[in-house]
């Protein structure tokens, strides 16, 4: 039980002004609107839920096939099929609020105005605790990754969201940016409270028999354990190169994976693809983190952030 453990060991973290009871966050686009896994995942171990990306209007998404498995990973080109902000607030948010979880709204815009408009609407909504600004989706024609690759655009998107809301603002960075730490510094100046990374890495696969791409969209985003070492490196760079708190993700499957991100500087982590593989990942990771803290005589998990030592492992 999360409560029992907290008597001796504090598993809570604070990031972007959010106090999370556990450092584990459900990654956007992999946990629906939040309550889909209630029968099979241990919600007690989940600190917050980042919901599927939202635009102002509903979106149909890419045609199928939309997913393909690759070695230790998967490609997806969903193209942000979603219900639109109004239906989210009216129909989806009440169900996830009943679970008593901290809800992070993940937003995407095809223009700066759209990002700003979404921020204003969410600011008025009850039950949303923070805004994750997706400036890194590889699967949409405009917006998304375009904003995330250019530090100026990333800063401008952050700025319009910042102006529209008092909620914590968390830009989600693209692994396609050539200098992610530079992007992080710019969004910090523009008012971001934290950054999250990484979104999926643009990638593709081809069926050599038919000589056709595996995905209808041709290019998709790679996620899962295959991206983890890249993601760890990026979190390390951003944590060193900017003062913003970092939420790390990319292929986390267990406590050891989560610890890598924490030690290189993440204050919290998200889990996406591996929840598909095993909804038991929440319990296992939470218990493993608690066991690690005890073994290493750490009283508060948050004290682990950024404690990677210099020199190499023996």
């Amino acid at each position, binding site marked *: 039980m999360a409560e029992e453990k907290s008597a001796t060991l504090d598993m809570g973290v604070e990031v972007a002004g959010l106090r999370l009871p556990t450092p584990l966050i459900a990654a956007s*686009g*992999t*946990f*629906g609107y939040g309550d*889909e*896994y209630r*029968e*099979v995942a241990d919600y007690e171990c989940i600190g917050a839920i980042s919901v*599927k990306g939202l635009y102002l209007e509903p979106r*149909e*998404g890419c*045609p*199928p*096939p*939309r*997913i*393909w*498995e690759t070695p*230790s*990973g*998967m490609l*997806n080109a*969903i193209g942000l*099929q979603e219900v639109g902000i109004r239906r989210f607030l009216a129909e989806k948010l009440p169900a996830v609020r009943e679970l008593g979880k901290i809800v992070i709204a993940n937003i995407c815009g095809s223009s700066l105005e759209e990002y700003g408009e979404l921020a204003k609407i969410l600011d008025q909504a009850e039950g949303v605790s923070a805004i994750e600004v997706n400036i890194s989706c590889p699967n949409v024609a405009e917006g998304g990754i375009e904003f995330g690759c250019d530090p100026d655009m990333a800063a401008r998107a952050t700025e319009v969201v910042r102006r529209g809301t008092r909620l914590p603002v968390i830009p989600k960075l693209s692994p396609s940016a050539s200098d992610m730490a530079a992007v992080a510094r710019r969004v910090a100046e523009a008012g971001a409270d934290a950054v999250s990374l990484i979104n999926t890495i643009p990638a593709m696969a081809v069926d050599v028999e038919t000589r056709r791409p595996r995905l*209808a969209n041709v290019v998709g985003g790679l996620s*899962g*354990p295959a991206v983890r070492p890249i993601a760890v490196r990026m979190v390390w760079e951003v944590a060193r190169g900017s003062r913003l708190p970092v939420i790390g993700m990319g292929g986390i499957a267990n406590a050891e994976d989560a610890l890598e991100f924490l030690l290189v500087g993440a204050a919290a982590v998200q889990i996406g*693809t591996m*929840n*598909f*593989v*095993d*909804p*038991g990942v929440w319990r296992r990771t939470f218990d493993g983190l608690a066991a690690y803290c005890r073994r290493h005589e750490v009283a508060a998990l948050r004290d682990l952030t950024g404690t990677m030592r210099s020199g190499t492992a023996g």
Partner: protein
Amino acid sequence: MTPSTEAAGPPAPSRADLPPRADQAATLVARNQLSPDAQLLRFESEGPLRVLPGQFAMVRVGGGGLLRRPYSYCDLLDDGAFTLLVKEVGVGTRALMNLPVGGEVSSLGPLGTTFDLPPPDLTPVIVAGGVGIAPFVLFCRRLAQSGRRGIVLLGGRRRPDLYLWDAFERFGMDVRVASEDGSAGHHGLVTALLDAALADAGRPFLYSCGPTGMLLRVAELATAAGVPHQVSIERRMGCGMGCCLGCVVWARPPSGGPEEYLRSCTEGPVFDAETIAWDRDPHPL
């Protein structure tokens, strides 16, 4: 033939009416090699299991790739055991087929929508091809338990592909088969048997599962004849839980409203065939 003029069958059950879902360990207790590349696998799950016909499990097996793979529950036995009918196509199916007896998988289910029993005055006509045969074993068990009979049309390339033919006969079904090489029953496609079956049924209710070409043909005939038709669709799936949006089918939502991409793991895999936009969505896997 006197086709039904009623639009469709009973309303699809809402999520609340479906059995509870769980991720359970299941142990392989028996294997039956049905053909060179297909097996019937019998598992015992660690806890209780309730399943409705047409539902599926997302199965994870060591060495079977990263993501779970979807399989229809083929049959549910009184002691809580279930069977899967598996045909080898890649790494996931191969790992299941090589799993030693006593080996464990984890099975997340039951997932998705169900084949509903037809209204009492209609006769079920089932059209199944390949591993699309799987969900109809449990369905016919339920039909038999409620004293119903129906016509089952099985299709495959060769005689060994007409899986579990005898099981359907044991449930008292009128089984008719077709093989592409002529080694059993009608020489050709199973859909060639459909007109006669619909006529014999009098007031038929169609159910289908199998290759896309077969489903399309059945849907065309059903629409032309005004026969209600439930179809199970197979799509690549990432999660089975409605969260990855990888499994979509372009169709009209059960609640009405315009067509959109519906999740075949959640709004399906069983759909009322007339809600599917076949012309927009005949897509390859």
